[in-house]
């Protein structure tokens, strides 16, 4: 099972890199989203995949019986999902605001905060 999921993780990474290299902000954000989901899957595989019982301690017992799944990756992924959920909510709103105030989602055209150097601008005027 692990090799299969590992291949899926690799494919997701490839997709996200492809999207991240795109010039459109929307695709860029999509790429980040795929990347973070691939990462969650990666942590899941890193914790080893087993077909076991849920990690719960039965009533009246002090420790869990043998053969329970590793709860730590699940806790890590849940934390990471919560964090990425809130961050992406922010980034999506930001993208929307950027589209409204800058009138573009083309990353090459977003130069309000980074105007071209003065020398280059002058040269541009001469030509």
């Amino acid at each position, binding site marked *: 099972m692990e090799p299969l999921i590992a291949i899926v993780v690799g494919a997701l990474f490839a997709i996200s890199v492809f999207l991240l290299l795109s010039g459109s902000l929307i695709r860029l954000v999509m790429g980040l989203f795929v990347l973070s989901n691939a990462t969650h899957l990666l942590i899941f595989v890193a914790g080893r995949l087993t077909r076991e019982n849920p990690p719960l301690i039965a009533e009246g017992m002090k420790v869990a019986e043998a053969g329970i799944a590793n709860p730590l990756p699940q806790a*890590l992924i849940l934390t990471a999902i919560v964090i990425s959920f809130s961050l992406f909510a*922010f980034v999506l709103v930001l993208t929307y605001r950027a589209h409204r105030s800058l009138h573009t989602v083309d990353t090459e055209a977003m130069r309000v905060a980074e105007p071209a150097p003065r020398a280059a601008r002058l040269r541009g005027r001469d030509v």
Partner: protein
Amino acid sequence: MSEMTGWLLVWPILLPVLASALAVVAWGRERTQTLIGFAGLLAQFVAALALFVQVWAQGPLAMSMGGWAAPFGIALAADTLGAGLTLIATLVALAIAVYAWADSTPEQRSGGLFPLVLALMTGVAGAFLTSDIFNLYVWFEVTLISSFGLIVLGGRREQIDGAVKYAVLNLLATTLLLIAIGLLYGLTGTLNMADLAAKVAQLPPGAALESIALLFLVSLGMKAALFPLYFWLPAAYHTPLPAVSALFAALLTKVGVYALIRVFTTVFPEGFALTREAMAWAAAATMLLGALGALAEVDLRRLVSYTVVSGVGVMVAGLAIGSEAALLAAIFYIVHSIIISAALFMAAGLVVRSAGSADIEQLSGLYKGVPWLAVAFLLAGLSLAGVPPLAGFWPKVYLVQAGLDAGAHMLVVAVLLSGFLLLLTVGRSFALVFWREAESAATPASPAPGASAALAGGGRHLRYALGALVLLTLLLGLYAAPVVEVALRAASELRAPGPYFDAVLGTAELRP
């Protein structure tokens, strides 16, 4: 160790988070929020001071959250480095808060300025004081979420533009960090840094570990603004409120550098030749390109952003050399850079405020209108360049000495050359902005009368905040011995982390 001393670790994190929650409940009530903001930051500073005094007297300290025994629970821990950086960060945050209060409109203040600053300080203190690598990631995200809120506060067009770049690249960096942590967990089955150090040392060195180490270097380097991943910083740091720029420049990159130091002294202490080599070259390139970028820049606030980048190179150079003296220099430089980055951004903000522009080729003759600002800018700039009586001088002396001892001549040349370039930058901007005769035609907002009028409102408090930081860098330069002593203790603890590990793992009692 009784649990009560362990609580000293909790307060610097818990107090600002509670204050932030309280300020959020008082949403829209601007005066209440401001009051809670200052109370929270002051309480955090006092807590950090108490923690530092304890760590200085008794050595490293740790506490497992919820009483879950190490290495399974999440432990907070402080050695001299963590406690010292928390102390200086909370102190500088207080000065920045005064500046932020005096420099913001009531709408910005009721729009969440203080709750967000408190949340950011929670994340910063948490990152300095955790000994769990996944928890470190969580604190990074706490600072990131609050910095997102802060960077768009005000909502001008260029802020949105800067925020997009800042958000996307920092999100990418933290995701890469999470990948590195996931892979490391898959390899070792633990997240506790002391436990990781032991487990990694037992693994055979090879491609897997080396690539994880490189992944840590890339992701944390991106957060710290290390070459070639620093471009987001000068694209974004000049856009928000000056106080927010000061806060980011003072603390966020330093948290990245701290994490680099922590990870590469505990988890990957030695034997990662490729990573070390990459780190040294990246540090040298960061120093030089940061200084060159600053020299070429005409926007004063972007110029200051580039000097922040250059400083990151100096700190990472210390880590790349790795000897005790080099780590001492890196730690001293972090303290210096926290103070000076904030001071320079404050000064740049005041220039914009008094003259209405940040273009150093258009500004002129500000010395006549605001002489105190000229003096403060010059002192802060000279300290940045590393001119002798000021605080920036000492860490560079130690670093050059350590570099020569270790045979890292390339880094020594880079440190000296970048210092020279920064001196040129500071001289050029000071001469243009403050010293040359005012050209009345070129400066539409005439500085002399306009300055005092623009600063009449909260101007006094802005001056106090900047003055306090400049005084601090002067004092640290003149009385460097105590800082060197603290940095030396911190560096030697990093080189021999036994007591820190014992505290984290709770094994101190087991040893004679």
